[in-house]
């Protein structure tokens, strides 16, 4: 038998809030907590550890943290990635975009790059009843539409003008046992009370960029009018109706001090007492996932919250980037499940379909409105093209990432960067992911 060694796919971090080290294996999906003495040796890959406590050595070997030198670890990772990706290919993840039109004019909107002003202002560009029937014909016919939740996105999906079509979509979805979530600006919600409930749209994400004036500076109506007060009233109303509300705040240098004020507002309004309320702060990307507006990144926001002692619970739960990783890690570890996420960054590379008002299919919201169409729904049929297949061929087995211990968590990064910059679609986009992951693991 060949020599024992430390696996090349061990992720090991010192715990932040208690003693010892947390370790996760990058393709076996195992987790262990090590005490300080063992942990430091493990961290330093000190082979004198092999002669210590036999029980722990046996467990480290069984869990894959130690392995034999002739182990082909990269093939094992690719094997796991293939299974994960193929499983995901059995199911479409559907987003419906009932309109491109929006009543807000936020300067940082990523759709500004894709849509002309005319498209954003075209109030008539709303999905037809016939198209919704077409979509549900497809859902009925295909075994691959097994998902339980449909995401409504836009433009602004919950704009007053869209009430008829949104009600039609939701009622039709209910007959198919579906629930809905929506990304909305939260302005016209008063008109949607019949569909915003536990049997329809159950969860919404709304953005607040600050208190009053600073929010209104970026998130104003197309005619420049303010929106803050009305959104606050709507949040109040729908929290009481048990709708899950996640409030996002886009942070740049101009509004970083609003973090403090918004947290006070959430406390003052009593929203923190609702189990159906959550909030987080995220930086604004400039052009790529490595470039942020005013150099404010996730870590700057985390530091700001920690340094100002603003939150009683863990700060990383309220910073975009960290929060998804943290909650997934925590939930998998707590439930003694395999601690692996996905073989690709997001559903754009694994059967995500975004259906536009005219039935055009895209895989990625960053591509909406561009010439990078991936298919079409018409006559009750879904037709996808080679570009769709190209997106869906991108996962870590075919990337340099298969060498990386974070590969099955990060999924190779955001593919849209490669499209925009005419790079090989399989080029990895790391975007600081290992640091985000380590920070989260150290907080478990």
């Amino acid at each position, binding site marked *: 038998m060949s020599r024992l060694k430390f696996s090349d796919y061990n992720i090991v971090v010192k715990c932040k809030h208690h003693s010892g080290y947390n370790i996760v294996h990058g393709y*076996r*999906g195992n987790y262990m907590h090590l005490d300080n003495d063992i942990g430091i040796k493990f961290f330093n890959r000190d082979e004198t550890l092999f002669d210590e406590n036999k029980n722990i050595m046996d467990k480290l070997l069984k869990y*894959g943290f130690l*392995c034999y030198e002739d*182990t*082909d*670890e990269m093939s*094992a990772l690719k*094997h*796991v990635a293939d*299974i*994960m990706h193929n*499983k995901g290919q059995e199911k479409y993840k559907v987003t419906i975009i009932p309109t491109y039109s929006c009543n807000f004019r936020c300067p940082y909107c990523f759709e500004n790059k894709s849509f002309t002003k005319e498209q954003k202002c075209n109030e008539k560009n709303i999905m037809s009843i016939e198209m919704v029937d077409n979509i549900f014909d497809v859902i009925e016919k295909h075994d691959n539409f097994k*998902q*339980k*939740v449909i*995401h409504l996105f836009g433009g602004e999906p919950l704009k007053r003008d869209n009430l008829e079509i949104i009600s039609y979509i939701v009622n039709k979805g209910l007959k198919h046992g579906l629930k809905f*979530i929506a*990304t909305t600006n939260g302005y016209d919600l008063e008109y949607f009370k019949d569909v915003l409930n536990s049997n329809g749209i159950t*969860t919404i*994400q709304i953005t607040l960029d600050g208190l009053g004036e600073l929010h209104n500076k970026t998130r104003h109506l197309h005619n420049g009018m303010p929106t803050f007060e009305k959104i606050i009233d709507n949040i109040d109303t729908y929290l009481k109706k048990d709708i899950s509300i*996640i409030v*996002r705040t886009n942070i740049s240098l101009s509004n970083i001090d609003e973090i403090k004020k918004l947290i006070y507002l959430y406390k003052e309004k009593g929203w923190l007492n609702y189990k159906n309320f*959550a909030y*987080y702060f*995220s930086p604004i990307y400039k052009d790529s*996932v490595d470039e942020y507006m005013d150099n404010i990144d996730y870590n700057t926001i985390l530091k700001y919250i920690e340094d100002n002692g603003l939150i009683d619970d863990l700060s990383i739960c309220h910073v*975009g*980037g960290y*929060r*998804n990783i943290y*909650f*997934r890690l925590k*939930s998998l570890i707590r439930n003694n*499940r*395999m601690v*692996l996420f996905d073989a690709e960054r*997001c559903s754009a590379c694994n059967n995500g379909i975004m259906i536009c008002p005219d039935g055009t299919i895209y895989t990625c919201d960053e591509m909406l409105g561009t010439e990078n169409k991936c298919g079409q729904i018409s006559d009750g049929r879904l037709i996808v093209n080679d570009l769709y297949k190209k997106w869906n061929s991108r996962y870590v087995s075919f990337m340099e990432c298969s060498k990386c211990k974070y590969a099955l968590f990060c999924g190779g990064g955001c593919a849209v960067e490669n499209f925009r910059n005419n790079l090989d679609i399989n080029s990895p986009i790391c975007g600081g992911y290992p640091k985000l992951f380590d920070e989260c693991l150290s907080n478990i």
Partner: protein
Amino acid sequence: MQNTELMELEERLEEELEEREEFGEVCFWNF
């Protein structure tokens, strides 16, 4: 990895993927 270990891993992963519930908030892509 021995073949038996790989098969065990594969089996465990298949079961895991069958059972794993959708992680709700992922849909909002909080990055």
